[in-house]
């Protein structure tokens, strides 16, 4: 009788343990320790042979001499470089359509238009991007509000990091409009908005005076602009040419907006003006342009990030889907380093600064205690063209592994052997 109860007890224990482990086929571990050959913290000096302690998806500690708890799952990365994931401060990719037809639509949101199966997200994750602010395109005056997502998840809800972030204002005149018409349209909108708000406040004050309940809400089509005026939303103002920059600065000053400037390549000509305004900047993907000097007829190369850097402007990079390098954020940073920018500053421009511009720097952008454990495991130095992203961890969970990337394999390996068709003649 005694042995039987032992057996039952042991078998029940085993059943519980086994089922437990089966249901959690890939357990999201609570405690992790990453042992890396080199840790680029961004916040401070690089750490050689360091450890990052992670608990519940948050960084608990990072350093050289860190005690690894006995129950922490150790991720060995002794021959790898670990750094914070890249952040994109502005993009219009991954949407069903970049722009809406009507010029003033601040009430729409990219949340409703993000396409999770777009190859843009698959590529972004493969290339080390862990967060991006997706805003409407450059062809609408008041384009709508943006959404911060991570490029991982089957639905927009699963990808979501933060909704309702940033409002896109584009100073590029719509087709068939001139610059003056475009600016006037904006001013008229703002003036009508201010009138509306005045009336609204008046009605509110009247009701309060009469001790009546006031339950009128702000017109839903105007809500986001009101939030913009109240600094609850940041304006992302797009200038495609240097001539538009003073207009953007005027808008920022007149309405007292929190602003990030999104620039076209030509805007380097306004670098000093922008430096004085101390506004953060997102550079265009094209970093090098050639111009003919009118006087000497010589071809001159302009390196845009260096022009801004020397003027003292803080900026973040963008990417495009063109050839070779500029589709990678690390390549944009490497280009700046090539022409004289310090490595540390260039790396900040693809991690910490964009995180600050979009307001997620409390969680992302650097490896510091208290921030999210969202890291890249690189096969080498981030600015080396031979380095690949080996793994991506988001909030303590490995969401990408290069070894299991089927699409990448197909793109790099020779095709399967097929039988050569026999010649017919």
């Amino acid at each position, binding site marked *: 009788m005694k042995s039987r109860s032992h057996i039952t007890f042991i078998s029940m224990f085993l059943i519980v343990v086994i089922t437990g482990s089966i249901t959690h086929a890939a357990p999201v571990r609570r405690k992790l320790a990453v042992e890396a050959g080199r840790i680029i913290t961004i916040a401070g000096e690089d750490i050689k042979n360091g450890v990052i302690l992670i608990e519940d998806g948050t960084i608990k500690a990072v350093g050289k001499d860190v005690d690894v708890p006995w129950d922490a799952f150790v991720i060995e990365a002794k021959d790898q470089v670990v750094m914070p994931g890249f952040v994109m401060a502005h993009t219009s990719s991954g949407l069903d359509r970049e722009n809406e037809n009507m010029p003033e639509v601040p009430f729409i949101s990219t949340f409703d238009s993000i396409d999770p199966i777009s190859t843009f997200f698959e590529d972004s994750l493969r290339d080390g991007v862990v967060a991006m602010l997706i805003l409407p395109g450059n062809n609408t005056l008041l384009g709508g509000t943006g959404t911060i997502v991570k490029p991982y998840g089957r639905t927009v809800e699963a990808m979501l990091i933060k909704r309702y972030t940033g409002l896109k204002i584009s100073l590029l005149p719509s087709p068939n409009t001139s610059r003056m018409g475009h600016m006037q349209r904006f001013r008229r909108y703002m003036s009508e908005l201010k009138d509306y708000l005045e009336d609204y406040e008046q009605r509110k004050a009247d009701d309060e005076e009469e001790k009546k309940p006031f339950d009128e809400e702000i017109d839903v089509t105007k809500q986001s602009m009101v939030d913009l005026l109240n600094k609850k939303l940041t304006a992302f103002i797009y200038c495609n040419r240097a001539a538009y920059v003073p207009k953007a600065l005027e808008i920022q000053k007149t309405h007292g907006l929190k602003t990030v400037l999104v620039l076209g390549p030509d805007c380097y000509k306004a670098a000093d003006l922008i430096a004085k305004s101390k506004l953060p900047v997102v550079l265009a993907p094209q970093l090098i342009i050639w111009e*003919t000097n009118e006087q000497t007829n010589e071809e001159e190369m302009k390196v845009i990030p260096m022009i801004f850097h020397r003027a003292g402007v803080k900026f973040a990079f963008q990417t495009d889907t063109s*050839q070779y*390098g500029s589709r990678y954020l690390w390549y944009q940073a*490497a280009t700046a380093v*090539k022409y004289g920018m310090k490595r540390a500053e260039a790396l900040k421009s693809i991690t910490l600064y964009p995180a600050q511009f979009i307001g997620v720097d409390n969680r992302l952008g650097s490896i510091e205690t208290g921030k999210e454990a969202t890291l890249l495991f690189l096969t080498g130095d981030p600015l080396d*063209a*031979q380095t*690949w992203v080996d793994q991506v961890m988001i909030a303590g969970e490995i969401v990408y592994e290069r070894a299991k990337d089927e699409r990448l394999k197909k793109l790099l*390996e*020779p095709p399967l052997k097929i039988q050569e068709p026999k010649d017919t003649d």
Partner: protein
Amino acid sequence: MRIYVILLTFLLLVTVFIAPGWAEVTAVKAGRILTISGEPITDGVILIEDGKIADIGTGIEIPENATVIDAGKSVVMPGFVDASAVQPVRGDLNEQSSEITPTLRISDALDPQSKVIKRVVQTGVTTLFISPGRQNVISGLGVVVKPTGNIPQQMIIKDEAALTVVMDMDPTQGNRIPRREPAVNFYYRRPGTRMAIIWMLRKSFFDAQQQADTEPISDPNLAILSEVLKDEIPIHVNARRAIVIRAALKVADEYGLKLIFQECTEGYRVAEQLAERKIPVVLGPFYYYPGSIGQYREGRQVNWNNAGILAEVGVKVALGSGGQPDTIDILTAATFAVRHGMDRDEALKAITITPAEILGVAERVGSLEKGKDADIVVLSGDPLDVTTRVEKVILNGKTVYQ
């Protein structure tokens, strides 16, 4: 007093007679010299005389009067050879009035004042192959040039270097079919389909073959094609898709042509066949996804490691910029080819000696060897590092960029 006069005259005579004997010598000292033809040289010297490499190696004595360029810790390489370069020409690249224009020489349209030249030099390219455009089935004769000189004649190092043939759908662009309207200009013509392109190509070579025994051939077009048949002028076939490449191989077999492929986006699918036939390949612009070009929505399947796969089975691979003004930097092309799987040394060869051999100018350019042209690129670091800059470019012994 007299003594001084005699001494002075003696000195004068010495300078007059010996001075001409002092040739203009430049010496380039560098921490690392990648000759491409042999082992890399550490802390070496290159002696340049009259625009040619007079000597190269370690422990070389530098003549007293030589101009010394001290490249310190920099890396030195041969000037790059772009076998599919952007074209410094004026006007249309294609003669639209006909689809078969073998006698067209793109060298006649060279423009030494073109803005493209200064940009190309700054990326380290010192030899370019300029091809006529891609809108004709047989678009004409290309030319190998250096980005230097005031007039076209000073640029050319090999004229009539190759005949350009285009077999993908490009030549069909712009041709109209006189369905409802009568033919009002020469655009109403073949080809409108791939079969017409291949038909026109076959017919041209057939006609040339018929003339094989006549000497001299009166039709200048057939005369050029006849030289191609006799292997006197190389032939470059522009083909992207695997089915087009296979069709080209068929035509080559029929007429005994030794082909060289340009663009060859799907070359990896026929890698073994190309290796078997020893067909060299000049890879054109690189695309991550086929939709990137937009114009030709063919069913192109891209493999990022096209260059690596081809090189692996022994195909001679050259990396070119594909005539795209935005991607003239072939050093970046080599860097990314290595990233995607190509062997390092093969990649460096792919922008130097391999294209030089393909173009038939390897006795002059493509590597740093005694007797070759002094075309040298000085780099701030490892060539395959994206943070490396081109510090200096020497062309024919003269510094043209720094």
